[in-house]
């Protein structure tokens, strides 16, 4: 799976590729395919030509003369127009207002080496706000194959019904949650263990969700009121990372700050609570852990720690503002424990990088 955001053109390109077989080779080749596919899509606008070239240049198995990898590429612009190209993956599923919406596809035969030709489906979907488009690998549609009542596995039709079901059940279902639900259902079909790779990619068209994260006390006392106001008046998810910062804001707001002893035993300082703030955690250690998790976990299982909760909130948002306080922490002068304001600043920078690069978030850093 690969995602690419072209900021200047307002386009987001995503590709889901499924390599032949499984294991390392399949993984490398599907990664290669999705990378080539997204980057090529970015530079080509003629749909047909693009489908043709893509299916020709993709890596191919030398023994079997078969494409190593299937692919579905979605190229969506800021007006919601989605150019979709599908090759050998299960059909993408469009859910509008909780119902399955038919996608008009055009079959295109593309000349292709010794094999003659292959068939690629192309379509242009004008996506509307609230629409969800689910693209899955055959590991999902074929899950449960041979199980009772599922001779051919789950099948596209049932998958589509399942998608419509979860979307009408929960109007606010995010793309991430939906993808997770689909894969979890596939795993359930298999009785808890997948025999093939099951991948789901979901696109949801909606207004961006915003999050404000405040970390570190401001350089000067007079900015305490400023960060408090910013947080108080912010429309969106509000997060504080840092005990001292939390205390400053709680005092200014005149609200109690309560730390949970119960959450201890996780290797991280526990979370706290301030009324009106969605999440309050410790600072440096939690943010470092978050960076680790973002780096390695991908869309993996969220940990049940303050860092896990933090990751969950950030991945559910699109535009993230980090307000980073730059007060020199006097702990610094304690030679046994050299914490530096630089640590916080660098952490913020690295978080911005990984959130933008791996998760296509927009991140702004403001130093106070």
């Amino acid at each position, binding site marked *: 799976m690969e995602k690419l955001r072209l900021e200047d053109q307002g386009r987001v390109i995503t590709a889901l590729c499924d390599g032949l077989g499984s294991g390392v080779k399949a993984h490398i080749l599907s990664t290669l395919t999705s990378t080539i596919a997204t980057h090529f899509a970015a530079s080509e606008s003629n749909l047909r030509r693009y489908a043709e070239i893509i299916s020709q240049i993709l890596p191919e198995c030398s023994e079997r003369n078969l494409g190593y990898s299937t692919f579905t590429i979605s190229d969506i612009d800021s007006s919601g127009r989605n150019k979709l190209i599908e090759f050998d993956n299960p059909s993408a599923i469009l859910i509008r207002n909780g119902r399955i919406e038919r996608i008009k596809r055009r079959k295109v035969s593309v000349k292709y080496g010794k094999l003659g030709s292959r068939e690629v489906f192309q379509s242009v979907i004008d996506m509307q706000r609230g629409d969800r488009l689910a693209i899955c690998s055959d590991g999902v549609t074929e899950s449960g194959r041979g199980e009772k009542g599922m001779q051919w596995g789950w099948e596209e039709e049932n998958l589509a019904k399942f998608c419509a079901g979860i979307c009408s059940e929960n109007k606010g279902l995010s793309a991430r949650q939906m993808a997770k639900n689909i894969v979890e259902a596939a795993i359930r079909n298999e009785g808890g263990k997948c025999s093939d790779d099951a991948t789901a990619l979901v696109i949801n068209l909606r207004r961006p969700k915003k999050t404000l994260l405040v970390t570190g006390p401001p350089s000067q006392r007079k900015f305490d009121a400023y960060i408090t106001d910013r947080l108080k008046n912010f429309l969106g998810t509000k997060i504080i990372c840092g005990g001292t910062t939390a205390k400053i804001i709680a005092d200014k707001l005149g609200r109690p700050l309560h730390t949970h*002893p119960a959450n*201890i035993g996780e*290797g991280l300082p526990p979370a706290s609570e301030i009324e009106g703030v969605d999440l309050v955690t*410790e600072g440096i250690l939690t943010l470092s852990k978050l960076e680790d998790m973002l780096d390695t976990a991908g869309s993996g299982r969220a940990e049940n720690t303050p860092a896990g909760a933090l990751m969950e909130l950030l991945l559910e948002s699109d535009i993230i503002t980090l307000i980073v306080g730059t007060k020199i922490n006097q*702990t610094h002068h304690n030679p046994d424990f050299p914490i530096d304001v630089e640590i916080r600043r660098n952490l913020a920078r690295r978080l911005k990088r990984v959130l933008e690069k791996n998760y296509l978030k927009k991140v702004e850093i403001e130093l106070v």
Partner: protein
Amino acid sequence: MKKILVEICTGTTCHVMGSEAIMEIRDMLASRFKDIVEIKATSCIGLCRERNAEQAPFVKVNGRVVPEANLLRVTQMINEIERGD
């Protein structure tokens, strides 16, 4: 019997210096303390920044600071307070 309040600092410095382990005190107290000792977590209480203060982790027992706190030292302080020293 008078209540005894144990506040364990869970701020960054104290956490790094091992305050998490002190939470276990809940399970280690003699049974006569079970009802009178209240254990709370706090965020940084500021002592780690004082240049001449002693070493983290810090625990407060009824307001009295236990520096370089560990299970033993905190238990001792609870005993002392119970005896009324």
